[in-house]
């Protein structure tokens, strides 16, 4: 049982990282980016291609993540601006539909161009013992990266001027403008950051299991569930929800089955919406 739970935490940390990106973009602009998972796949495929060309793993991983960020930047500059210009009511719907379209474009293109690509980062070395359970180095490295990233994010938002500026736009956009903060720039920054985080998750996931070119939809759904359960717009919420759901995922997969597990996770999201729309730690209902 311990092994299952530990595996769940490892998975959950990455779930959390995946959800954080999505929740940030929503918190800042009310846009639910249904192409989030596809951005992760962009990183995976870019890294896989680089690896295939002989580039060292670390550089390939970095390149993949940056590629995801680049695609995010292009998306923001081209489409997101139009979405943010809409008044709140129309914005949510337009954001959902446009990002849905984008996810199909990216998925379609990648699957067409690289139908059998998948990213697998092999972290060598034997297993390590943790709490009496043998863990693969890949799992531990993935968790370490996720923890460091999470910590860095929290520090960023709490302590840095830019991080504070991001929070201010979420809390009162007009007030932010009055102190000289440009909400549009902040939104671009966060969108690119979320793309980078998505790419990072693809990299860490590939350390324990391959990330195929078709993984986009599953990753988006995961991010969606984590975000909803944690509370739309809450960064700590995404982490907490991520870890919880990671454990639920591994426990359920182990004792019940794969298909039911997916349904369980989706039901968790649906139940959260129905019973407590603000999620675990959401500030706004």
């Amino acid at each position, binding site marked *: 049982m311990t092994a299952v739970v530990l595996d769940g935490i490892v998975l959950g940390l990455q779930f959390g990282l995946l959800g954080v990106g999505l929740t940030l973009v929503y918190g800042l602009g009310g846009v639910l980016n249904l192409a989030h998972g596809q951005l992760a796949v962009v990183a995976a495929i870019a890294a896989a291609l680089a690896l295939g060309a002989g580039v060292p793993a670390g550089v390939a991983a970095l390149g993949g993540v940056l590629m995801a960020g680049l695609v995010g930047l292009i998306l923001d500059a081209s489409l997101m601006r139009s979405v943010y210009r809409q008044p709140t009511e129309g914005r949510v719907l337009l954001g959902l539909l*446009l990002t*849905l*379209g984008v996810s199909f474009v*990216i*998925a379609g293109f990648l699957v067409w161009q690289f139908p059998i690509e998948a990213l697998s980062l092999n972290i060598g070395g034997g297993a390590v013992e943790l709490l009496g359970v043998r863990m693969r180095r890949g799992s531990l490295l993935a968790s370490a990266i996720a923890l460091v990233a999470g910590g860095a994010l929290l520090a960023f938002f709490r302590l840095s001027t830019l991080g504070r500026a991001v929070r201010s736009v979420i809390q009162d956009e007009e007030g932010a403008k009055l102190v000289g903060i440009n909400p549009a720039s902040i939104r671009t920054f966060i969108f690119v950051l979320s793309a980078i985080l998505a790419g990072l998750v693809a990299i860490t996931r590939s350390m324990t299991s391959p990330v195929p070119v078709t993984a986009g939809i599953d990753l988006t759904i995961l991010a969606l569930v984590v975000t909803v359960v944690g509370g739309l717009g809450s960064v700590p919420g995404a982490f907490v929800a991520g870890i919880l759901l990671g454990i639920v995922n591994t426990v359920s997969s182990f004792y019940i089955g794969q298909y039911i597990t*997916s349904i369980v996770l989706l039901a968790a999201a649906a139940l959260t*919406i129905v019973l407590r729309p603000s999620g675990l730690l959401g500030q706004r209902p």
Partner: protein
Amino acid sequence: MRAILATGALLSLVPLWLGDSRFLMGLAIGGLVFAAYAVAFNVIFGETKQLFLCVGALAGVGGYLSANFADRAGWPLPASVVAAALIATGLGGLFSWVAVRRSLDVIFTGIVTLAFSLSYANLLLGQRTFTGGENGLAVASGSETAIRGHASAYYLFLAVLLTYLAVYRLLQRSHVGWAFRSLRDDEQAAELAGVNVSRYRIQAGLIGSAMLGLAGALLAHHEGFITPSTYAFGHVDVRVLVMLAFGGIGTLLGPVLGAAVFTITDELLVGVGQLREVAYGLLVIVLFLFFRRGAIPALTSRLRRLRA
């Protein structure tokens, strides 16, 4: 009503034109089915702004349940179809009711229905005994009847589509419809004017879902073989969105026009494989970015303005 009759008359000529080509008739029937889906989605989304991202799933509920009722439980075909459609109706109504009771806005309805879509897809894959998993399910019931034919099935589905259009028109024209239209523009004003926004949302959810369940069930008995991809989100919902965004959200014949155009386009794009997905994605982006209510309505109003 005249427009519906005219459309019906026009469409009923299609089998004569297509002749005996089994393939082309299959396409035409597929087009009718998608038109029916689109009209149903128009009721739910076009009229009352409920983002039901579970069009395929609700149709799938109709399809798989009816197949099981008929083949496994041995119920007569009409009873199976109706029962399956009723369950789909109940589900859709439930989504509307929950959204209304909890005052959920569009994003949450979208997420819940999307979650349902995906859960249903997983359910279909997992419950092999009832669904055949990813290998699909053969539907025996209906195999000796008119529903399995070509021309006969075509006219059956045409009748169903025309009925849906008539229901839509009746909704639009009734005091319920007036409420629907005022909902589109300003919910708060509608509330103040005494329009019961909640009740109409639920009614729309029920009616639209009934349409979807029925169409899905009939499709199952017609095709004789269904798989999860018959009703998958990527196959059904995306196309319906594009059809409606093109033909005109909230218009009577928009869904039919959109279905006609994209059934043909879809077939033309078959050779391109995965790029077809890219094409649909781009269409969704372009259509929703540039046209608020649909491409055709925007173009016709521009034409009208040019003429004036």
